[in-house]
């Protein structure tokens, strides 16, 4: 995975995770292009797009879009499961998560993501495990 972006239906960025080293300017360009392309997609189309040499997998959850840039050998259908798992983790943590939760607690969203993915790869496949880790880390906060 090269990147994962979360943005609203108005195109406002809510989370950006980059797994490749590129310049800030380049990142902004990609974000702009992703938001434009994904928001322009028709409702009943498939969740995949081709962009440069990457496969873009995106999914809409209520007012939020999740968008991932995958390499050629990555499994697109599994990426949908990965994105879904992340939303489930957020849901478990916040209890019926909505966009506002992610806006006001963006740092927590990042912490959860960091317990789920490292370097673009899944580190833990058990939902329970990830949730437990987050809870324990939270308890450690002073």
């Amino acid at each position, binding site marked *: 995975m090269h990147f994962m972006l979360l943005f609203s239906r108005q195109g406002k960025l809510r989370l950006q995770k980059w797994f490749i080293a590129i310049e800030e300017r380049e990142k902004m360009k990609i974000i702009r292009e992703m938001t434009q392309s994904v928001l322009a997609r*028709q409702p009943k189309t498939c969740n995949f797009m081709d962009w440069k040499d990457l496969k873009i997998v995106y999914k809409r959850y209520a007012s939020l879009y999740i968008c991932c840039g995958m390499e050629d050998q990555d499994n697109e*259908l599994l990426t949908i499961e990965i994105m879904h798992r992340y939303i489930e983790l957020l849901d478990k943590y916040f209890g019926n998560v909505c966009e506002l939760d992610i806006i006001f607690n963006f*740092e927590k969203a990042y*912490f959860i993501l960091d317990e789920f993915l490292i370097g673009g790869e899944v580190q833990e496949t058990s939902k329970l495990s990830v949730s437990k880790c987050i809870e324990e880390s939270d308890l450690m*906060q002073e």
Partner: protein
Amino acid sequence: MPAPIRLRELIRTIRTARTQAEEREMIQKECAAIRSSFREEDNTYRCRNVAKLLYMHMLGYPAHFGQLECLKLIASQKFTDKRIGYLGAMLLLDERQDVHLLMTNCIKNDLNHSTQFVQGLALCTLGCMGSSEMCRDLAGEVEKQLKTSNSYLRKKAALSAVHVIRKVPELMEMFLPATKNLLNEKNHGVLHTSVVLLTEMCERSPDMLAHFRKNEKLVPQLVRILKNLIMSGYSPEHDVSGISDPFLQVRILRLLRILGRNDDDSSEAMNDILAQVATNTETSKNVGNAILYETVLTIMDIKSESGLRVLAINILGRFLLNNDKNIRYVALTSLLKTVQTDHNAVQRHRSTIVDCLKDLDVSIKRRAMELSFALVNGNNIRGMMKELLYFLDSCDPEFKADCASGVFHAAEKYAPSKRWHIDTIMRVLTTAGSYVRDDAVPNLIQLITNSVEMHGYTVQRLYKALIDDISQQPLIQVSSWCIGEYGDLLVSGKCEEEEPIQVTEDEVLDVLEGILVSNLSSTVTRGYSLTAIMKLSTRFASAVNRIKKIVLVYGSSIDVELQQRAVEYNALFKKYDHMRPALLERMPVMEKTSTNGPTEIVQTNGETEPSILETKHMPSVPQPTNQANDLLDLLGGNDVMPVIQTAPPTKLVSAGGELLDLLGDLSLSGGVPAPGPPVSISQPPFLLDGLASQPLFNDVAAGIPPMIAYNKNGLKIDFAFERSNTNPNIAVITMQASNSTEAEMTEFVFQAAVPKTFQLQLLSPSSNIVPALNAGTVTQIIKVLNPQKQQLRMRVKLTYTHKGSSLQDLAEVNNFPPQSWQ
């Protein structure tokens, strides 16, 4: 100083802003407060401030002044600080920042921290964005963590190792010992990340791959784990819609693919499990299909037995009929990958694939189109083409160019008959004409020329298309060219293939003239049209006067391209009318060559005939001879012999040969004192090979020093040298003429001649006015071929008008630097 406002407070405030300007103001105010807080080295609130900064960064505002603060947070003892610090580092401190490396020490310390969560933070940060240097420094620590018994840390260490290997592949060896027991773990997190690590190692290094196959017996281990996953009962912790840990299953399948590729033993060992997964996986949800997808990819890529392959293709066939668009898309993608190797199997699903062309989804349509073209063969060409042409009619513009190219390509390979081929081309030109690629026009022209018996039919159909619509440039170009060549067939009222139309010569000329004057026509198209009109002067007996008039008018066209053509055609009428029929004769059947270069260029004062229509070999019009005479004057009567052009035997066909002979005759009649040899004409084909599409200059500058070739009366000619990158025997000289007097030099013409063993090509000058007082230069490119590596000498002739009087000078250039001709 009051406590800085809380993060949530700030977010709430900023969200109340109604305009961008209001938001910017709030942000600036807060940034100023944060900056002063940072300056005061306030430890208590640093965390809060950096968090706020990160929020503002996400909104798109600069946050670089917080970079060092992140470092301070990481170094702090408090867990909260570290958490935000590392987050800030990951967002703000990528490897391009100078302070990135300062993190290394902190990370090293934290990797050995007593609390696993701190260690986890460090591993995570390293694994997400560590630079190569950092990876080198810390690889040892990561390796240590890979051997720990704490599964929480072990899984993170595995992925950090993956990142280290990606950044610094040489360090791969280091992690090998630690991988020995990774797959014996029960913990799924560790299992998953271990499989990822092993995949990375096997992908990058064939040695590793061989090692894992033979020594570690990886395949049986993986098969065992996969089997357990499928056979074991419900495990709530890892269950997704009834399937046990799909993430792990997919990664194992992917690793098996790499292990089984090109290896019979490994492939055999995994046959059973693959068959089991393929048949037993639930397909009602996306999860199951994700696993099936990966299984199919693996089956197709390893040396599986044929039964298994058929099973895989059938799964893909079922996918194609699935309601879920994602599944259909994935099926088309996979089929595209396998169509080369399992062509027949994929052919069975052709009708479904063709149906996908009608899908509403753009991504699916594109895949279906690509796959359809891959499936076209001699047997199904007619049916497929019907579908593809229908698709071309109705598809989005973004597809049209690719589709048109694909149609042309397929038609060329599998056309059942010439007539069908021509009809297909016509259909494409009329429906998607404006999207056809530029290179299609010459290819089509060649095709039409070579279908000799279809000329009458072709020109008739093209003419009819022209009457309807003159907006699509490629169509008009091809049509004009055809009418020019075969206009006589058009008006003859005879046609074998279909009902002949009755059209008069004047009507044809009306249409062509219409194209000339239309605003819709591009310059290139106008050029085609004008030349076609000219060719008709020999084919239409009664229209010569009308054609003469048209040509005369365009002699003063603003467009230089048209003007040049018209002037030359005019000259043809005036002085060389006896040659006109021979010159404008029908084009012979052309061989298809691989060069894209322009046709043979006839030497004058450097103007080349960039005729786009005559794709391969000969120009249809010579240059007027007055310039030719000048050259002879230039060369005659001294020991610098003119270059003799011998007609290159194989490529040129008879008409070309005649052309050269004719020019030879011309030069003789020009009254030259020197004996016989014809005028120096330019380039043999080999100099042209690929030149048009190549950049003229090498990046590798040959280091040849420039020189002043001529410097008199205020006119200075500089030569700069480079070697052509297509042929090292060619020196490319850039001539620059500058004028230091106070009056400009107009009608500047630069001519050159070289000794017998050389060959010279002069390209068009940038202009023919040399501005006064060195305000600018006239640039012209000269190419000199020197296969015998003799000393280069050149005679130049300069003519120009200066202060009202016309001047002329001859000079010999002998001071070429040795590197330019050695």
